[in-house]
Every structure is written in C-alpha cells, then in structure tokens.
C-alpha cells in the first residue's frame, strides 16, 4: 500500500505544482534559517574532547579580596596564582596535573635572509600532551625530568614545523626563540579543539598555540603572560619575583581524575589546601573552590556567544512561522481536493487510507524541503562566514557535518508531518457525501 500512497502523493504534488512548490519553499527556508543557527550553536557548544571531558577538571581557588568576590555574585577568580599553581603541582594529588599559560615568542630562523617572526607560545608542564590527548606527528612531549631540570626543549605545531623545517621530522633539531636555543622533542599533528577549552581566557575559539615549552623555563626567563592578568592587591616593588609571589591570577590549572571518589578526594584536598593558606594570612574569603569538568567549565565561561543564542531563539521562531505557513497551504490543498477525497471515501476508502495518503504526501514534501533546506543551510553558513570574514575562527564554527545534514532532513520531515496533522485530520473528517452532489 505504501507504494500506492507514494504514487498518489507524487501525483498530488504534480497536480498542484505551485502550491506544492510553495510548501517545499516554506519548509526549506524555515529549515535553512533554523539549521544555520543550530549548526553554529552545535559547533560552539560541542564537546572538544568527548572521550575525556568528564575526567578533566578545571581548578578554581577563591584567593580573592576579602571585601569583594572576583566576579558577582560570588565567583572565584577564573585563573590561579603562581603560588597556588606550583603548590598544587608539587602536591601531585591527581592522576595528572597541568599548569599552563599563553605567551608570545619570537623565532629566529637559521637562514640569513629569513626574518624573525612572532608566534603564540604556551608554557606548560610535561603532562599537557597526555592529559589533553594531543596528537603527535613526530616524537613526543618532554618528560617530568625536563620540567625539573629546566631543559630548553620545545614542541612545535605542524604549521610551524612546516615553516621552519619544510615538514621534515625535526625531532632533535634546535630552534632559537628570543635568543635562546631549544631542542625539538616533538611535532604535533593537526589539532584544533573547538572551543579551545584548556584556556578560555585568550579567545574561546582561537587556534591553539604554535609552540609549547616547559613552564619552569618560562618562569626562569621571566616571560609574561599574553592572556589576562588580574590582581586584587597591588604588586609590591621587586620585579618578577614579587610578581610571582603576588595575588595576581594569570595561569590555568587542570587535573585529571577518574570517578566521583577521586573528585571528592581532590575537592577535599583543595579545601584543606585553602585552610592551610588561611593560616598564612591568604584566602580570606569563605571556602569557595571549584572543580569543573570540561562541559561545566565551558558553560561557566559562557562560551556560546549571546548573539548566537538570541539568533537561535529567533531562528526557531522563524521556523514556526514557516510551519504555520505550510499548515495553511496544506489546508488549502485539502480543501481544494475535498471532492477527490469524497469520491475515494465513497468508493470505499477508509479514513486511515485518506490519512495515509496525505501523510505520505506531506512526508515527500518534507523530504524535498529538507534537501533544499540543507542547501540553504550551507548557503546560510557561507553568508555567516562572509559577515564575520575578519574573524579567522568563524570558518571553524560555520561548518556543516553529516550530523547536522541528517538533523536538517529529519527536522524537515518531522516538521512537514507535524504541519500535515491538522489538515490531514480535516481531510479525514470530510463526509463522503458532502461534496459528491456538486461534483
């Protein structure tokens, strides 16, 4: 029977090409607008590290001023101080712990004619790569002893290795950054976590840094951060050392914990640490330490832009308007064909048959609308890219994957079926005799 209804449906579409075309267009435009925003929202709110996102925890310690919170209503600062980061690192109470911050370095290539260039760098500890599952093309990160011995080692990203070594395996080679020589231990493969969850303070959707080198070296060389530095208390005289000992927050601290038990233990450890600092006159606020897994951290950081959320709401309402339009058009179509329905009913078609016929027809229209909608979504995303063409990262956000294509088609079919329910019900209600006389 399905094939018969399909045939009837296609016939119905052909009989009223303008009306059917309008319906397909209404669904396609609604789907296009809605899915453009859904796609951007989906990419922005995606899980950047799905296999581990519930095992990685961002640490926030409330070391802020006794008179006011770091952020209303009572948020702890979004980064940690050097004092606390090194203390937690030393305690080593988690499976893995990583401290890092973003800085800038100037690389001086070996050749005479090539000019020095500036890149973004990340100062971090050896566990960074394993913890965040960073893929390597050649070699590996450095080990804990390199951190301890302040070895001048470096990991390059793929693009920088391309630029410096033409893409060859450069493990063991040396590069010069700001006058110091570093030994390459590894080269990263393509790595683009969206959002850049491990450091939200330097642009949630910026590219990862180009080079990575030991935190201990970076502190030794007095390399300042390129992200936010926030202080609630003046830094006393004394240069770099007094800055390190200050209450300024400027680095990110992550731990890896497996299971609730470990999370509870680590939380208890953090609280105990805060208590121990209170004894030294620090941490004058009530205990307010946070351990947030990746998705919670992204949520706290309001990674999804407000504009995107506004547009998503309006785009969904836009789809509603298009569907109301479709329902109206379908209703018109059913009314126009009421004679045909009466005749079929008179010839013995049960209500269910009329229902099936129109629902199948709506499904076909939904499918067409969905297909066209995917095209419009793609166009919409191109449009959004065009609007934001000055922001490089938008091209990573405005991307259609097969999940979204499938979502678009399914949403279109469901929309069409949903829109068809009332008109089809009306069609079923048409009394077999009502129109025959005037046929």
């Amino acid at each position: 029977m399905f094939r018969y209804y399909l045939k009837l449906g296609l016939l119905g579409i052909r009989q009223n090409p303008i009306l059917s075309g309008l319906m397909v267009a209404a669904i396609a435009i609604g789907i296009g607008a809605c899915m453009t925003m859904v796609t951007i929202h989906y990419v922005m709110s995606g899980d950047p590290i799905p296999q581990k996102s519930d095992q990685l925890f961002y640490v926030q310690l409330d070391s802020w001023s006794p008179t006011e919170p770091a952020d209303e209503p009572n948020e702890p600062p979004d980064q940690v101080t050097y004092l606390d980061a090194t203390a937690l690192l030393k305690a080593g109470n988690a499976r893995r712990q990583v401290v890092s911050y973003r800085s800038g370095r100037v690389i001086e290539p070996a050749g005479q004619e090539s000019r020095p260039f500036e890149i973004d760098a990340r100062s971090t500890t050896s566990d960074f790569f394993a913890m965040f599952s960073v893929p390597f093309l050649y070699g590996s990160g450095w080990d804990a002893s390199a951190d301890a011995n302040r070895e001048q080692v470096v990991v390059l990203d793929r693009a920088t290795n391309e630029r410096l070594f033409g893409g060859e395996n450069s493990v063991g080679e040396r590069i010069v950054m700001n006058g110091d020589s570093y030994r390459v231990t590894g080269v990263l493969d393509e790595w683009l976590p969206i959002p850049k969850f491990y450091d939200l303070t330097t642009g949630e959707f910026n590219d990862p840094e180009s080079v990575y080198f030991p935190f201990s070296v970076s502190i030794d060389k007095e390399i300042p951060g390129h992200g936010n530095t926030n202080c609630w208390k003046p830094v006393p005289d004394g240069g770099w050392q007094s800055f390190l000992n200050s209450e300024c927050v400027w680095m990110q601290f992550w731990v890896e914990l497996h299971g609730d038990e470990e999370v509870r233990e680590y939380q208890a450890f953090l609280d105990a640490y805060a208590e121990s600092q209170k004894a030294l006159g620090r941490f004058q606020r009530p205990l307010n330490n946070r351990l947030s897994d990746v998705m919670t951290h992204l949520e706290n950081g309001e990674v999804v832009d407000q504009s995107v959320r506004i547009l998503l709401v309006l785009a969904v309402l836009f789809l509603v308007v298009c569907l109301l339009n479709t329902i109206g058009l379908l209703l018109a179509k059913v009314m126009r064909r009421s004679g045909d329905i009466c005749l079929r009913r008179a010839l013995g078609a049960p209500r269910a048959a009329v229902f099936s016929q129109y629902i199948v027809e709506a499904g076909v229209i939904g499918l067409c609308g969905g297909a066209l909608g995917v095209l419009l979504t793609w166009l919409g995303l191109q449009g959004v890219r065009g609007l934001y063409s000055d922001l490089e990262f938008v091209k990573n956000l405005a991307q259609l994957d097969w999940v979204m294509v499938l979502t678009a088609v399914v949403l279109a079919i469901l929309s069409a079926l949903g829109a068809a329910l009332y008109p089809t019900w009306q069609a079923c209600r048409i009394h077999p005799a009502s129109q025959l006389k005037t046929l």
Partner: protein
Amino acid sequence: MELGPIWRALTRNKAGYILIALQIAVTMAIIVNAIAIIQERSRLMARPSGVDEENLFYLANVTFKKDTNIPAMVDEDLANLRAMPGVVDAIFTNSVPLRNGGWSMGLATEPGEGTESSGVAVYFVDEHGIDTFGVKLVAGRNFLPEEVDWNDPESSRWPPTGIITRAMADTLFPDEGDGVVGKTVYINDDNPVQIVGILERLQAPWNGWDGVERSMFVPLKREMSYGRYVIRTEPGQRDRVIPAVEKMLADSNRDRIIKDTRTMTETRIRSYLGDAALVKLLSFIVIVLTVITGLGIVGLASFSVSRRTRQIGTRRALGATRGAILRYFMLENFLISSVGIALGGILAVALNMWMVETFELTRIAWYLIPLAMAMLWIVGQLAVAGPARRASMVPPAVATRAI
C-alpha cells in the same frame, strides 16, 4: 461598512484564518524584538571613541634580543616618526580604544586597603598623547615633558599625575565638574595621583565594558617588549604614510619585528564585527519573515477567493459593485491582521520580557509595537490587494452558471 457579517463569516470558517493570524502574531513578535536588538546594537556602534579615528593607525613593535635597549630604540623611533612628512604626531603606548585588550586599574578617592575604587582604563603616554589621539582637553593642562619618564622595572610606583576623562571625573567626584582638576586620587591602595587635566572623551579598549567611557592617561613610558606605536597623520595622508612608516621602522633597526599594522577604521570594524553581523542577520530575518508572511496572506487570500467564486458572483448579482467586493476582501484581511497583530503585541512583549531575563537585553521601546502593527497592517493590505482585485473581476454571471 459591513464589519459585522465579515467577522461572523470569519468565525465560522476558522482554521485557515487562525493560521494566518498566528503567523502574523509570531512574525510581529520576532520583528519587534529583532528591531529592538538592532536599535540597541546600532546605538552601541554609534558611540564615538573620542579619538581622531579617520587619521590614526598603530602597529606593534616586538623586541626579542636580550640586550636591546628599548628606551633608546623607542625614543629614536618617536623622533623619526614625528619628523616624517604627513605625520602629525606619534606615541609609544600599550593600547588604543576598541582594541579589546588593555590595562585597567582601580582609582579611589581615599587612600588605604579595601577602599571603594572605580575601574579605569590606563593608557601610558607622554606629553604627545593628547595630540596623537586627537582627544580634547576640556579642563586643566597637558603633561609637562619633565613629568614623563621611563619606568623602573623593579618598582611598582605610579607617576604622581594623571589626566582622566570627564566620565571618570564624574564617577569619582559627582557634581564637581572642572573642580576635579587638582584633586588627588589613589591607585594601588595608597599611591597618590594628582589629576591635572580632564579629557572630553576617550573610550577604554573594551567596548563591552560598562565603564567604557572611563579612561586615564598616565605619563609613563613602559619598557614593553611588545609595545605599540600610535601614529596620527594629516587628513587624507594615512594610507600613504602607513607603508613609509613600516619601511622606516623595519629598516632603522633589525632587532625587532614590526607587525599588526592596523588603522582605527579597521579596529572599529573588527571591534563591532559581532554587533554589525547581528544587525545584518536580524535585518535579513525581518525582511524575509515579512515577505514570507506576505506570501502566506497572498496564498490564503487566493485560495479563499477561488473557493468563493460563486459567492462573489452571487453578491455581484445581488447588487455589489466591484468596489464593494474589493472592500470585502480588504476588510476581511484587516480583521484577520488585527487579531494577529493584537496577539502579536502580547507575544512581542512576552518574548521581550523573556529575552530581557535570559540575555540581559534592554526593554523594547514602546513605539516599536504600534510601528510594527502599522507595518504588518500595510503588508497585509498590500498582500491581499492582488487576490482582492481578482475577486472583484469575478463576473456576476457566475451566479447562474451550473457547476
């Protein structure tokens, strides 16, 4: 003339009309809120930064050699820059308005730890700061050359003088006006700073900050390995001066990188890119939505006309003129639109209240509601005009035709 019967006829054939009314209602809710957001963002984008945006550009100076003498390099660069043809003035500083990255401090009217302070954006400048940015000094005086010095990396003391914006002055000392000049405020708990001048306007680097009008000039040149030259050119000379400046700086000293040259015009565009894009997307939504709703009205009206051909003929036979038929359909649409618009008004306010709550948007201006109502009424009348005209052309003889 015949609202009563039209209305009664409408209520007996609800479904199609309810759909259109609902569509108009949701459309109105979206349009009103979209326009409110467009207005809000446009208002943000229209705020002046206070600087001479047309003729300003800046570039980053990155030093990387261990033995580079930054003060010597910068002083030499500044002397060279200020001597270049087409250049009005130049400074070495940390940021510019709208750049979304800068330095902020708290200023308090009383010394001591934990006193209430107000955030202020800090620009490190010398006595050329006012001239270079093109800001207007409305009270007090500029920095004297002897007040400006290079910082001591080991010290966290702040210079004893500062120039603040009118907005900052009003925040610290409400109702004192120009009397703020000569007063002392405190930075870093107890470091006194005497206010020597007031600027009419100078925005902070962060356009999203609610204290965006609060800025301060500090007479200090900092030894930054990543600093910026801000250069003001003669009107119309900017694009000619940029390559000359880049070449001069790059050639004069190889121990640094000159990068990220950007004009203030570009900076403004980048700074408000998200707002501008939102405005465009919302305008697009408003237009497309209006068109779709208009087409919906055309579709329903056409259908309704073709379904009622015989009735139209009968009315004509009973003495209706063409004008009367036209009026009938126009009035019918007016009634449907009115229901939709009334519902839309309620929906628009409800949606706005929810958005205010969820997205911290501002309330819609009251006049947007009648404006959107009038617009949708007009759209409805325009949309129905075609089908209504076709209805008026139905010949009266249709009434006697056998089906």
